[in-house]
């Protein structure tokens, strides 16, 4: 029988050599050093900043949660604040009203997130795409306006207290706890996508018929995707509650949910590292302006604006920029580094190809005109 390679045109093997053991040791070493620097900084910085870093880590988890739904399963969820908020309230409720320990509260919050998102997953079996996004948006409104208003759960306007566990009560310790959980979520996300679950979810996203022909249960994995996303969101909700030590309904609004969607887009859909970086950036940005004194003065005195309000414009603007010009987001921009970590040789361009020259018509004509280059 003629061999396949005689029939097919030759394809250059572009896979390249695998790194040696030494190569892996270097990569793992660099990862450990980087993580170490981050954690050391978190542990030694002033409490104000440690607290902000805790929020950044929590945003990272929220970003990863949305990334599972948006990036991996390809559905748009505009109501994630409902999952995070519900879990936050539940965690606070069980610790304050029912006297449970923080860890039980955390666990229950995670389960609640998984279950409520699983419910949404069931709805997603029948309702797709744009219409599903509408359902999620509406559900988010319902949650905020009815569930979050139930006095027993939320103690009304004053909010429900959410004390921290004694072992992690300080800003520094709690921040480290949040980073630990971020690491855990990253690891789970990595394992999930590397094993049969990841393959199944991506197959279902691309074509349900093809996935089914591989004996993948389409409904099962769709719901599982949502449940994992919900579990991450629930975890984030509990951490959020106990970081703030009081949970108020106002913390969770539909605008938050929309901003979270944007931060995942800026990070790069489906790209774990990019999403974490993007999410942290969104969490820290209002305070980053404060770091650079001249910039802070410029914003507050010359422009007369509050730096926090600036975020509200920069965030969406970045998202639009990403969508129109740099669709891969941050993840795409840092891909030389992430690919090196994954074991490829370091190179600025994937597969030895240079990126396509930016076609002129991709730059909107208006911008070109503004740049003075005429039509």
């Amino acid at each position, binding site marked *: *029988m*003629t*061999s*396949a*390679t005689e*029939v*097919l*045109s030759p*394809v250059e*093997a*572009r*896979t390249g050599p695998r790194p040696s053991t030494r190569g892996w040791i270097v990569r793992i070493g660099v990862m450990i050093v980087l993580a170490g620097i981050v954690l050391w900084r978190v542990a030694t910085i002033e409490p104000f900043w440690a607290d902000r870093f805790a929020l950044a880590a929590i945003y990272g988890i929220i970003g990863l949660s949305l990334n599972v739904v948006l990036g991996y399963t390809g559905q748009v969820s505009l109501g994630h604040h409902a999952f995070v908020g519900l879990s936050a309230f539940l965690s606070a409720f069980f610790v304050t009203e029912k006297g449970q320990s923080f860890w039980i509260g955390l666990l229950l919050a995670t389960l609640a997130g998984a279950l409520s998102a699983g419910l949404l997953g069931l709805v997603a079996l029948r309702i797709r795409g744009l219409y599903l996004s509408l359902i999620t948006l509406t559900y988010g409104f319902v949650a905020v306006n009815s569930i979050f208003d139930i006095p027993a759960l939320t103690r009304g306007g004053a909010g429900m207290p959410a004390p921290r566990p004694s072992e992690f009560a300080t800003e520094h310790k709690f921040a480290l706890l949040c980073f630990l959980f971020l690491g855990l979520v990253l*690891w*789970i996300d990595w*394992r*999930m996508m*590397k*094993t*049969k*679950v990841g*393959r*199944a979810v*991506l*197959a279902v*996203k*691309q*074509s349900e*018929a*093809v*996935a*089914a*022909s*591989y*004996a*993948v*249960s*389409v*409904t099962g994995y769709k719901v*599982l995707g949502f449940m*994992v996303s919900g579990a991450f969101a629930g975890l984030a909700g509990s951490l959020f509650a106990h970081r703030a030590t009081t949970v108020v309904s106002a913390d969770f609004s539909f605008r938050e949910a929309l901003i979270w969607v944007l931060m995942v887009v800026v990070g790069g859909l489906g790209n774990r590292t990019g999403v974490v970086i993007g999410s942290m950036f969104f969490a820290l940005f209002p305070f980053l302006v404060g770091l650079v004194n001249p910039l802070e003065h410029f914003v507050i005195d010359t422009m007369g604006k509050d730096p926090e309000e600036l975020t509200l414009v920069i965030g969406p603007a970045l998202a639009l920029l990403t969508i129109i010009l740099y669709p891969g987001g941050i993840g795409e921009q840092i891909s030389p580094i992430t690919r090196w970590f994954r074991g490829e040789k370091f190179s600025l361009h994937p597969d030895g190809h240079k990126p396509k020259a930016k076609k002129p018509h991709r730059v909107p004509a208006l911008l070109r005109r503004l740049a003075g280059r005429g039509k």
Partner: protein
Amino acid sequence: MAVLEVRDMGIRFGGLVALDAVNIDVPEWEIVGLIGPNGAGKTTLFNCIMGLYQPNSGTVAYRGKDVSLLPTHRRVAMGIGRTFQNIGLVRELTVIENMMIAQHARIGYGAMAGIFGSARSFAEERKLKAYGLDVLDFLGLADLAKEKLDGLPYGTLKLLEIGTVLATDPDLVLLDEPSSGMGPEEAHQLGERLLKLRQTLNLTVLMIEHHVPLVVGVCDYVYVLNFGKVLTEGKPKQVQAHPEVIAAYLGSEAEKVEADAREIRDESGAGLAPASDGGKERDRGLS
């Protein structure tokens, strides 16, 4: 009892009757052809057999068991494999990952174990990868293992799809136009390959095809579908001689087609008989 029995299959989309009282039998180890003009309902029939569409009437029985109410993934797990007209591969995954997901039905760890990274999942993943590489090796595609699917040539993708179907370890394979995009040489070789695979793996095949020499050379039996109904059925030679079929397809090409078909049969030497020690041949797998 045939491996596949389709009885009285009917489905309509709005006002359009896509299939009407279709009866198909695919006996064990036979290669059965399904031909007909575009729009006759051949792929629709495949989708109904697989469970991707819910027919308005009719049943599907696999090895005597009624599978009409089972979801698609269960039918696949039972042993029915299927290729797609537009290449049924997952483009988001690499070549080797496609080979690994093809083995999904037989993976030895649960979803949760995978998510939390149990030791078992690591070991199983290595096994999946090894088997996947074996199949790729057999097809001569091993050095493409880590490649993404975009940019690979059409012929490679078609070959890969056959590899993934085989990796699902099927008894019955539904092939949707396997020779599409191929020239006469390649279609020849495909025919030989099919006959060989049928022999070594004890496959039963139901094949949608337009390439008439391939059908005549390889199929034991042929159904002709037209406007959703079975126009006629029979051995390839009989069908070839049927006046309505000739009118629709073969016209004056009949003699040339007959010569090409003879060529395929002679060259492969595999003929139409299944392996005599079916079981043992099968266990040896592909290596």
